[in-house]
């Protein structure tokens, strides 16, 4: 009988993938906070969420995760952990999450291709997906948006100003979030 492998240890490549996803979750969560401050479009979307609603996003089965909460009408990043999320969107594995975070697959396609699954109310998941699309509009470059959205988002002059503001403030805003 050959050797019985009980668990496959994480390779360097796997750890690198996890690092990219963790960094992306931190950046995405921080961008969510910033966009919810400056974008009327996201403010309007969040207006339909009840105060205190939380949602989690990450990789299933012990992978990197994060939680966002609506507080005082805005989104607040709660850190790289699941904090009693009412709704959680899990990618099935790190490769599935990487497709999204590296702009190779749209978030709607992650469900269509069964690469993500949902724990929670489907209607609230649709609201969350729309909010995440708005955040991506201000985070991702145009060529990725053109490739990953069903219909590429339209930008007004005010949107470009919000995008510039978010880009300028992203790195400084990520620093305190590192310690959450």
């Amino acid at each position, binding site marked *: 009988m050959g050797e019985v492998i009980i668990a496959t240890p994480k390779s360097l490549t796997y750890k690198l993938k996890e690092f990219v996803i963790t960094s992306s979750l931190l950046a995405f969560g921080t961008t969510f906070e910033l966009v919810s401050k400056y974008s009327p479009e996201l403010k309007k979307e969040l207006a339909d969420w009840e105060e205190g609603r939380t949602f989690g996003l990450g990789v299933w089965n012990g992978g990197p995760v994060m939680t966002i909460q609506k507080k005082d009408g805005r989104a607040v990043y709660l850190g790289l952990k699941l904090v009693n999320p009412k709704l959680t969107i899990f990618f099935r594995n790190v490769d599935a999450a990487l497709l999204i975070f590296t702009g190779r697959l749209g978030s*709607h*396609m992650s*469900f*269509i*291709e*069964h*690469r993500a*699954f*949902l*724990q*929670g*109310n*489907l*209607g*609230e*998941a*649709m*609201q969350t*997906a*729309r909010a995440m699309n708005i955040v991506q509009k201000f985070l991702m470059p145009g060529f990725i948006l053109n490739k990953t959205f*069903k*219909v590429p988002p339209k930008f007004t002059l005010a949107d470009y100003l919000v995008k510039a503001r978010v880009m300028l403030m992203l790195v400084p805003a990520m620093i305190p979030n590192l310690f959450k």
Partner: protein
Amino acid sequence: MVPNYYEFFVPVKIVSGSKALPNLPYEMDQLGAHRAMVVTDQGVVAAGLLGPVKAAFEGSNCAIAAIFDQTPVDSSSTVCNQVAKLFREKNCDCFIALGGGSAIDTAKGANIVVSENTDDLLKFQGHERLKARMKPFIVIPTTAGTGSEATSVAVIANVEAGVKMSFSSPRLYPNVAILDPKMLVTMPKKITAATGMDALTHAVEAYINLQKNPVSDAFALSAIALVRDNLVKSVENPNDEHTRLAMANAALLGGIAFSNSLVGIVHSIAHAAGGVAHVPHGVANAILLPWGMEYNLGMRQDIIAELAPWLGAKAEGASADRAKAAIQAVRDLCKKLNQLAGLPLTLKEAGLKEDKFEEIAKQAINDGTMNYSPKDATVEDIIAILKKAY
């Protein structure tokens, strides 16, 4: 067209044909079950369809241990809990759903409560959350439309919160679907027409939306062809068992297709119209299907054009012409069903009031099926569709 990635799964044993129902105890025995709980509704009881099910057990070592015949039009978590309680009290070991979508989904919900050993169905809403092995589950459809006898999905209302909850898991597939034409011949003309259009809508949306794949396409096209050839006939000759069986198969095939490829904008709006204004699901689908196809024409013209011959339209000319012919074929079918069975052609005829449009549109954009529509829709887009269909 082969998508970049897809999954397909259907584990349902199909028992279809004349005198299929007497196989019920055999199928139960094969599943290791001997004490059945029948979940049905008053309409089915009034139509005398419980009798043949009871008769199927004559001389067998299997029995009906409990009957729940109070399933409401829309299944709810409260009812699922009641059914689960009765299942436990009577020491049942399998579920038999006898009826349409509501009875089937109620049995699915009760099966979750029993199998996951919980008293809170709410904890399991969402996708792929079920871990327990479900109790054996046999479905005997008495309508030909929902396709729930071959789907991994259940839609159950949370009455207290006023929302419809969606449960989706490969574990929710029934073990066996028994399609016996005798169980369908009592269906009234208008319900035959509406449920048949529901089956057609499942198949058409599964074929044109973003999750389509070659395997679900095969099921969808077979369903469309069966509806094309048999729906009008089964309305015209309700007692014709051959066409009834064909429509039962169309519904099942449509169910398998959409269980793996999902539905789209027509269902998003129909679900909302049902929730807000109680427009019957099949009626809403029938009215909205051509408008939904037209809405997606810009993104899916070639795919809609492929449907032309399957819908009985001309398969000649440019893609745009064939796509339009396919949509016209659906409209013509609706008109025929309107003449034969009084199926409403507009939302106004279905009793919808214009002041409900905005509420419907707001619910529709939050319906999970919208994700699978080739073209996204805003509240304004949906109101525009509702106005056209009015």
